[in-house]
């Protein structure tokens, strides 16, 4: 039966109270550990077409008569369009239509950052559209721009109200602390740089708009486009079968979709609007900069009694202020915590969610601070973390928490410290560091799935979710195969089309598998129940003695044994249909993911070069569905984290706000030459309170602790306290210089 509940919904660390219609979730969880299909290595179901270049991405959609769009972007950080003349653009060859500010959502008459969309042209070729955009005559009134986040805070210019959190009495606790450490940490703006840029192809067919889009949320695009255009949702069909990466930046339609839809309407032709790489690095979102002024007070035995932080998120012109303060509030048992978080509104490109937004940045600050405390108290950093282990999220119990098991898994890597340090020779110093991870990732309702079982015993799972490259398509197939007792190669998953499947949640917030997976299992169970009902009638036995395993239906006494094909051949072209929905999250519990990473680095104290040599990761995300895909996710998160930690940094001109690192030459991301040895382990224990699967999400957790673990390894190797990301050679040499000046008892004296 469907139920109506009032519940707290979390996406990317943002909470809201909502009414939800949820399905019952009566299935009991499977037993712990690897099963027949679930919990084992499975090759990606769509690997072949992706590797062979057959997968059709949005970038590959070529419709007859399709036009191409170029967008005029603001050359000023803050300005007003006084006058705009599209006529010179419209007069050029190949041009079909042009849009002025206000003609489509996202085309701004008062752009608030350099690179904001202002006007757009559709032409036969992209080159023609570009030339036409250059011909548009604009008269600008340049307005004052605030680029410095501190200045924005001083003016109380925020994108959303500042957030204050307090439990206990921070100030009083700090007074009674034996040691106090205060440090300021900074993280830079980094860019998603999905390989496929943000883009849409829009086409009107009758009164229906078809939107082919590279997106993490086809249903979010559907509702936002329908609302903007004032048409019913079922008149917007959103398609994204293969998607070239998003990392949080593709959760909404973006101005390119509204522009393409409007131009398609005006021209009667399909229209593509695709960002160039340089536009991508300017206007497609970013992980915002942070400034974190942190304080820890502790007793001499290592008990943390006070944690405080002032966090500034340099959000940009719009966007939300992510939970940079979350790790400080949630990671450790500490009775007295006070945090203040500001989201500075500055005339810079807006942030978009980027793989555990806020927590990546906040964990860097907090976990470096905890390590500095360990050095000061001459305590083992691992023991210090275990000592301050939290057994509840504030007062709320966890649905499950196995961080202690992660620490146990990490022990053997942590014990390599002496061996690693002994490798130091000449100017190269080696060391080991660690950091813990906490993040959301429990998903939630609603999400739905259908199953079709055919007369040949093959299964199709239909759900209008999207696979953004994480391998969720394969995980869903594994879940259906396990429940139905069929081999994995009998299951096909159809997804990525809002008109051809039931609602499924967005692929963000590590929520896809924990949200859609239980619905797929429920839909498979519904089909299995029907198959067993049919078999019971056909063979005149009780339903409860029948089961399906390895594609064969058998009775407990062995009298019935038939393949699914034999049983179901009577169906001919008809099918057995199952449906399933995602049940509610456990009431009154915090659903969180945990982990720890141990990093080994080498630092050249003469040049400031840092090399990450080995990363060992242990994560607790409940039940693992695809052990192979899970390892790939962890590796990918760690490698992206290495980029954030060592070299990725969006730079801008402080005078004009113009982005300088718009090419992949200037914005340096990790290559195959930058990767360390990566060791990856999972606790792999189902969360007994969470859905019929006990699985949480894994997309984001691996990137969370990496930067702090690297910085802490650098401290172990050199005694230097790194306080800024990325750890460029300049920052490394600054930290080494500061360490030289600071006589520190007990710290390794490498320089």
């Amino acid at each position: 039966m469907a139920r109506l509940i009032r519940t707290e919904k979390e996406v990317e660390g943002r909470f809201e109270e909502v009414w939800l219609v949820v399905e019952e979730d009566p299935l009991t969880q499977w037993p712990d550990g690897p099963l027949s299909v679930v919990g084992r290595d499975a090759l990606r179901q769509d690997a072949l077409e992706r590797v062979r270049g057959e997968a059709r991405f949005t970038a590959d959609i070529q419709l007859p008569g399709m036009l191409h769009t170029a967008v005029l972007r603001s050359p000023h950080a803050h300005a007003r369009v006084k006058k705009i003349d599209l006529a010179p653009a419209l007069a050029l060859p190949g041009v079909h239509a042009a849009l002025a500010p206000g003609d489509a959502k996202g085309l701004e008459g008062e752009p608030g950052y350099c690179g904001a969309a202002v006007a757009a042209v559709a032409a036969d070729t992209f080159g023609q559209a570009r030339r036409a955009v250059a011909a548009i005559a604009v008269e600008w009134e340049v307005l004052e721009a605030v680029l410095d986040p501190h200045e924005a805070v001083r003016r109380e210019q925020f994108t959303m109200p500042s957030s204050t959190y307090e439990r206990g009495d921070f100030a009083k606790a700090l007074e009674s602390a034996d040691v106090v450490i205060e440090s300021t940490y900074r993280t830079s703006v980094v860019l998603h740089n999905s390989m496929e840029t943000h883009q849409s192809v829009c086409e009107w067919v009758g009164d229906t708009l078809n939107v082919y889009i590279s997106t993490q949320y086809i249903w979010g695009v559907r509702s936002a486009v329908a609302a903007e255009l004032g048409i019913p949702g079922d008149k917007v069909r959103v398609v994204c079968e293969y998607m070239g990466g998003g990392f949080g930046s593709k959760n909404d339609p973006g101005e390119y979709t509204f522009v393409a839809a409007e131009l398609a309407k005006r021209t009667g032709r399909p229209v593509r609007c695709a960002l160039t790489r340089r536009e991508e690095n300017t206007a497609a979102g970013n992980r915002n900069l942070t400034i974190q002024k942190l304080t820890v007070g502790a007793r001499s035995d290592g008990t943390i009694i006070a944690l405080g932080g002032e966090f500034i998120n340099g959000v940009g012109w719009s966007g939300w202020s992510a939970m940079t303060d979350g790790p400080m509030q949630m990671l450790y048992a500490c009775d007295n915590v006070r945090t203040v978080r500001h989201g500075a509104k500055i005339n810079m490109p807006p942030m978009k969610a980027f793989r555990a937004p806020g927590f990546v940045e906040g964990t860097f600050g907090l976990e470096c601070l905890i390590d500095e405390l360990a050095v000061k108290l001459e305590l083992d950093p691992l023991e210090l973390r275990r000592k301050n282990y939290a057994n509840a999220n504030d007062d709320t119990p966890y649905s499950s928490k196995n961080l202690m098991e992660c620490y146990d898994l990490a022990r053997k890597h942590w014990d390599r410290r002496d061996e690693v340090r002994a490798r130091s020779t000449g100017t190269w110093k080696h060391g080991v560091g660690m950091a813990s991870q906490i993040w959301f990732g429990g998903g939630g309702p609603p999400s739905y799935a259908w199953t079709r079982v055919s007369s040949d015993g093959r299964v199709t799972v239909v759900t209008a979710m999207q696979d953004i490259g994480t391998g969720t398509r394969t995980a869903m197939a594994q879940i259906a195969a396990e429940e139905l007792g069929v081999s994995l190669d009998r299951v096909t998953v159809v997804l990525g089309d809002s008109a051809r499947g039931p609602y499924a949640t967005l692929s963000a917030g590590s929520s896809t598998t924990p949200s859609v997976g239980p619905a797929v299992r429920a839909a498979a169970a519904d089909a299995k129940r029907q198959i067993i009902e049919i078999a019971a009638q056909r063979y005149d036995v009780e339903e409860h003695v029948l089961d399906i395993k390895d594609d064969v239906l058998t009775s407990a006494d062995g009298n019935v044994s038939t393949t699914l094909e034999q049983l179901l051949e009577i169906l001919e072209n008809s099918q057995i249909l199952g449906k399933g929905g995602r049940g509610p999250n456990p009431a009154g519990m915090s659903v969180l993911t945990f982990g720890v990473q141990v990093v080994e680095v080498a630092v050249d104290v003469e040049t400031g070069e840092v090399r990450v040599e080995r990363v060992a990761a242990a994560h607790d995300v409940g039940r693992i569905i695809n052990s192979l895909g899970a390892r790939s996710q962890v590796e990918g998160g760690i490698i992206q984290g290495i980029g954030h930690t060592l070299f990725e940094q969006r730079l801008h001109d402080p005078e004009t706000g113009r982005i300088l690192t718009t090419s992949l030459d200037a914005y340096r991301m990790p290559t195959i030459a930058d990767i360390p040895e990566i060791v990856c382990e999972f606790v792999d224990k189902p969360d007994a309170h969470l859905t019929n699967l006990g699985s949480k999400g894994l997309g984001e957790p691996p990137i969370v602790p990496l930067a702090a673990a690297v910085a802490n390894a650098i401290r172990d190797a050199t005694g230097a306290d790194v306080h800024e990301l990325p750890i460029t050679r300049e920052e490394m040499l600054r930290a080494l210089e500061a360490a030289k000046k600071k006589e520190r008892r007990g710290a390794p004296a490498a320089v």
Partner: protein
Amino acid sequence: MPELSLTVNEHRYEVEAPIEMSLAHVLREVVGLTGTKIACNEGHCGACTVQVDGMPTLSCITLAHTVSGEITTIEGLRDHPLIDAFVRADAVQCGFCTPGQVVSAAALVAANPSPTIDDIRHTMAGNICRCGTYPRIEEAILHWRD
């Protein structure tokens, strides 16, 4: 529009393309082979890699009219053992860079059938994968003949 004669995957194509059109655009939009991807369109990421006479070439910064050699794209490598090696090693996530990775890797193993890890890292460093499948790409190339 100027005529252009191209040999792609052992087929001869007689097409028309503007003089300023890149090989990547001609392959994708004129010839209709969309396996070659364009991710940066300025020669920095490797997604557009094709082979010209066996040499890895960035097709997004190569003018189509300047190419006289034999072009091999991912469509011409669909039966190459590397395809299966990439699938087995899980060397693909979103897959947008992957065709370019395979084309580069195919040129590597043609010249050097037993590449070391250092060979792989040196040769493949021009192909960016934002999902971070590098350890698996390395594994796929190391074991491409297994």
